[in-house]
C-alpha cells in the first residue's frame, strides 16, 4: 500500500494540517463568536471567549436593520451565477480552440491573456467606468456582470485548456474519421469527458466572481436594489455606531447558500474525476 508513514510522521502531518486550518478558519470562528455577542459585550475588556449573555438575536434583528438584506444575498448569487454562465459559454470554445487548433498568434494571445490577469480590477476602474458609462450600463446588473466576465475569461481559458489537452487526441481523430464535425465532436465527445474540468473551472470562476463583485458594485452601481451582499453590508455601518454583530451574522448567512452548493458539488467533483478517467 501507499500508506507508508510512521506514527510520528502521521502526527506531524496532522499537526501541520491543524495549524493550517486554524489559520484559515480562525477568522470565521471569530466572525461567528462576534455574531453571537450583544453589542455591549463586544468592546468589553478583558477579552472573554464565551459569555453567558450570548444570543442569536443578531440573526433576526439584521433583517430589520437592513430591510434589503435578503435581496442583497440573492443579488450576490445572481451576479456571480450570471458571470459564471456567460464566462463558461465564452471560455469553452476558446479553450478548445487553444487546446486543439492552430492559428496565428496562438501563443502570443495566450500570453496576453495571462498578462491581463496581472492587472487587478482596481487599476482599470476609471477606464472601465468610462466604458460602462458610454455603453449606458452604469447602475444596472450588467455594470457588475460585464467587467466580472472580462476579468475571469483569461483564467478560465488557461485552466480549461490544460484540462482539454489531456483528453486523448485519438478520440477526436476517431470521431473525425467517422464523419463527425468539430462542433459535434466537441458536444458529444469532448465536453462529456471534460465535465470534471468544467466543474473545476466553473467553481473557480464562481468564486472569483463572488470575490470581485464588491469592487465593481461600489464603483459602477448606485442602485440599492441591485447591490450584492458585500456592498450591502455597508448599511450596518450607521452614523452613530456599527452593528458589528449583525454585520457578521449577515456575512455568514450570505455565504451559507454558496457553501452548501460547493459542499454538494465537491461530491460530484470527486465522482466525476474517477468516472471520466480515460483508459489508455
Amino acid at each position: 500500500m501507499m500508506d507508508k508513514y510512521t506514527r510520528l510522521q502521521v502526527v506531524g502531518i496532522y499537526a501541520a494540517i491543524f495549524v493550517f486550518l486554524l489559520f484559515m478558519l480562525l477568522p470565521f470562528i471569530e466572525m461567528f463568536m462576534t455574531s453571537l455577542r450583544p453589542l455591549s459585550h463586544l468592546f468589553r475588556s478583558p477579552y472573554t471567549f464565551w459569555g453567558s449573555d450570548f444570543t442569536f438575536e443578531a440573526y433576526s434583528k439584521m433583517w430589520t436593520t437592513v430591510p434589503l438584506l435578503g435581496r442583497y444575498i440573492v443579488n450576490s448569487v445572481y451576479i456571480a451565477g450570471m458571470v459564471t454562465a456567460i464566462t463558461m459559454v465564452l471560455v469553452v470554445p476558446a479553450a478548445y480552440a487553444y487546446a486543439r487548433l492552430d492559428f496565428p498568434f496562438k501563443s502570443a494571445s495566450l500570453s496576453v491573456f495571462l498578462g491581463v490577469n496581472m492587472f487587478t480590477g482596481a487599476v482599470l476602474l476609471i477606464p472601465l467606468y468610462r466604458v460602462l458609462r458610454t455603453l449606458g450600463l452604469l447602475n444596472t446588473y450588467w455594470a457588475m456582470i460585464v467587467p466580472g466576465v472580462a476579468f475571469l475569461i483569461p483564467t478560465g481559458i488557461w485552466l480549461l485548456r490544460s484540462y482539454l489537452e489531456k483528453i486523448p487526441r485519438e478520440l477526436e481523430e476517431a470521431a473525425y474519421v467517422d464523419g463527425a464535425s468539430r462542433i459535434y465532436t466537441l458536444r458529444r465527445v469532448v465536453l462529456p469527458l471534460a465535465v470534471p474540468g468544467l466543474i473545476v473551472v466553473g467553481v473557480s470562476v464562481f468564486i472569483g466572481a463572488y470575490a470581485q463583485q464588491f469592487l465593481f458594485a461600489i464603483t459602477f452601481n448606485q442602485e440599492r436594489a441591485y447591490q450584492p451582499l458585500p456592498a450591502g453590508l455597508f448599511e450596518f455601518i450607521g452614523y452613530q455606531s456599527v452593528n458589528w454583530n449583525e454585520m457578521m451574522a449577515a456575512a455568514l448567512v450570505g455565504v451559507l447558500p454558496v457553501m452548501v452548493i460547493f459542499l454538494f458539488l465537491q461530491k460530484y467533483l470527486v465522482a466525476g474525476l474517477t468516472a471520466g478517467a480515460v483508459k489508455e
Partner: protein
Amino acid sequence: MATLDLQNISKSFGAAKVLQDISLAIQDKELVVFVGPSGCGKSTLLRIIAGLEEATTGQIVIDGADVSGAHPVDRGISMVFQSYALYPHLSVFENIAFPLRVQKMADAEMRKRVATAAEILQLTDKLPLKPGQLSGGQRQRVAIGRSIVRNPKVFLFDEPLSNLDAALRGDMRVELSQLHRELSATMVYVTHDQVEAMTMADRIVVLNKGKVEQFGPPMELYHHPATKFVAQFIGQPNMNLLSGTVKGVGPEGLAVEVTGGTVMTLPVEAGGTRAGDKVDVGIRPEDIGLGAGLRMNVNVLERLGGQSITYGLLADGARFCATLDGDAAVREGEAIDLTVDPADCHVFNANGDVLRRLKAPELTR
C-alpha cells in the same frame, strides 16, 4: 469492390522526409500489412490514407477515384486506432453506433446494423456496458465494430493488437483473419510485429526510413528478401550475416570464402558480382543443422521445447545463432559443429541488394 492505389506519396515534416515517393497498388479484398521498425513512416502512411494527414505530394486513389483531398467518410475508409479510441462515457452500443448517429441514420436501420456487427464480433451481451467494464480484447472488438457498421470500402488498422498481452494477441490475430474472410474487404494493417505481418498478410510492405524495401507475399519475403534489411527483419530469430569474399563466378553460382577460410559454392545469380567483391552471406538460424562445417562456441542456449535456439560466436568472433532440435545434444559453454545447405544461403552485394537464389523452394501461399 475496392482497390487502393498510392501514387508517389511523399511526406515531409519540415526538413525531415518521413515518406519518400511511395507507390503501391493494393488489390480488392486484399489484406496488406505495413511493417517496419518504429519511425519508418508506416503509421504516417496509414494516416495519410485515412485522411488524418495530408501527403506533401502524391495521390491516393480508391476505386479509380482520386480522393487525396477528400474527407475520410467520402474516401470510404474506416480506422481502428492503437489505443482503441473508445468513448469512455458512451455504452458499447453507442460507441458502435457513433458513425451512424453522425450520419443521422434512421433508428431501426441503425439498431439492425449495430446488432449485426455485435453478432459478428460476439458482443451482443456487452452492448449496454461501458468500455471501462470490458477486457482488452473486448474493447478491441468494440473498436472494430465501430469501423464495420459503416460498411467502408477500406479498413485501416493502426497497430490494433499492440496493447494486448501475448496470448490474447494470438487469439485476436486469428479473429482478425477470420473477420477479413467474412467481410471480404480490403484491409490495410500497420504493425511493428513481423509475426503478425507473416501470419495475417496476403502481401507485406516492408518500410524502412520512409521507403518501401519490398512489397510481396509473406513467403516471398521469407525466401527471396530483396534487401539485407528485409532479410533481417523477417524471420525469428534474425538471419545470421557472415561477411565473405567472392572467389569465383560460375554457372553453379558464386564461390564465396566465408569465415575461417571455408569456401562455399552458393547457387545464386551472379548479377554484376565479380571475383574479389565483398558480399554478405545470410543464413537463417532454422536452416542450420548439426554437422561438420562451421564451429560455434555456444554462449546461450534457449530450450523452447520443440526447438533449441543456440547463440554463440564463430571462430573469427562473428555472432551466430542456430535453431536446432528440441533435444539436440548441446550444452552452454561447449563448441558445436554446424552445417548448412548452400541452397538455403542468401547472398547480398555491397549495396545490401540480394543476388537471386536459384534453388529456393517453390512459393506456397
